[in-house]
């Protein structure tokens, strides 16, 4: 990228980030409600041992996504202790936190220089699909990871080392920064996909001629 195009690109990126952040903030409840059924499916798939439900609650000035689970079977923590079936847990996360990957990915894709409007539309469409996938990979696992922390803490209080479940490992990775890696990778993937589609179109038109 030429240095003289970097300043307008930076201004464009910051304006897009500001607009998307504003839209995300004002429409967070609507976006959250639209995503909720997808999150519920993901939670059920990831944790078949729980009966679960998700809802969006308003707490002070913020919205949170709350996961409520009831154990369908006992969860052993050690040889001496198990959480019995029917035991209930809740975990919650800020709704805005769930929207950050979407803002990052869409800012990159809307800033990425493309010559034609159709290419921009392609990037946005691909970006929305991949952003949904990223949300499914991050928010339900975050909530389930928080539930798993209850079991880990119970084991720790008995000086028992409980093997860390995969969902908790993934959650920790995401919260330590992989949550930012995923939208960046997804944005790169969308740009590569778009370049590939342009090449394929060119080859097709050459063959047709």
């Amino acid at each position, binding site marked *: 990228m030429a240095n003289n195009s970097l300043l307008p690109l930076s201004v464009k*990126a910051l304006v897009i980030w500001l607009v998307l952040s504003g839209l995300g903030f004002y429409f967070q409840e609507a976006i959250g409600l639209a995503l909720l059924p997808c999150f519920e499916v993901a939670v059920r798939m990831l944790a078949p041992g729980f009966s679960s439900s998700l809802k969006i609650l308003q707490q002070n000035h913020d919205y949170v996504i709350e996961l409520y689970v009831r154990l369908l079977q006992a969860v052993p923590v050690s040889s001496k202790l198990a959480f019995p079936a029917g035991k209930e847990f809740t975990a919650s996360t800020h709704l805005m936190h769930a929207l*950050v990957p979407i803002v990052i990915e869409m800012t*990159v894709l809307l800033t990425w220089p493309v010559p034609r409007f159709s290419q921009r539309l392609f990037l946005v469409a691909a970006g929305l699909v991949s952003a949904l996938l990223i949300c499914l990979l991050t928010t339900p696992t975050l909530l389930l990871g928080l539930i798993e922390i209850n079991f880990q803490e119970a084991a720790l209080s008995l000086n028992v080392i409980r093997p860390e479940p995969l969902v908790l490992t993934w959650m920790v*990775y995401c919260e*330590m920064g992989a949550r*930012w890696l995923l939208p960046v990778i997804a944005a790169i993937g969308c740009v590569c996909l778009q370049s590939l589609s342009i090449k394929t179109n060119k080859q097709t038109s050459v063959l047709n001629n």
Partner: protein
Amino acid sequence: MTALSKAQTQRLSPAIRLIIFVVCYLLISFSYLQIPDETLAHTVYYHGVTRVCADVINGLFPKESVAAFQNVLVSGQANLQIVRGCDGSGALFLLVSAIIAFPASVCWKLVGLVTGASLIYLINLIRIGGLYFIVVYRTDWFQLVHVYLAPSLIIILVCLFYAWWTGNTKTLAHGQ
């Protein structure tokens, strides 16, 4: 590095570079998770974050009387704890991995790493200082800035820095 291996490095496909980027990120992230919490809180965050932040805030706004205690910024009006992940590490690991994966000379990569790390450190200090003032004067803005605006802005700024760095790599290559 020999001329042949340099040429081979330049020829790596974008897919392989993407894999290098992700693997580097995971390795650095994994190493970071091996650092004990106590080491981070008592040593790294104290010397690198809270003490510096307290000095800067006290220098600019003496009435705040902020003190650093381990990983906590303390004053009469606020108590801000810096925990693992609130240190800009996520953005730093992204940038380091992306710089390692990009075809550039070792010297230019070092320039990118040092400049980028310094930039992220500076941005993070501003973020933590800003969060301190938000806790004190606009508590209801805290979650908005902490979990929503600051993380996305830092990543966008890092992407822009990376665009500048890669752009200048090309300029150097043409100039050589």
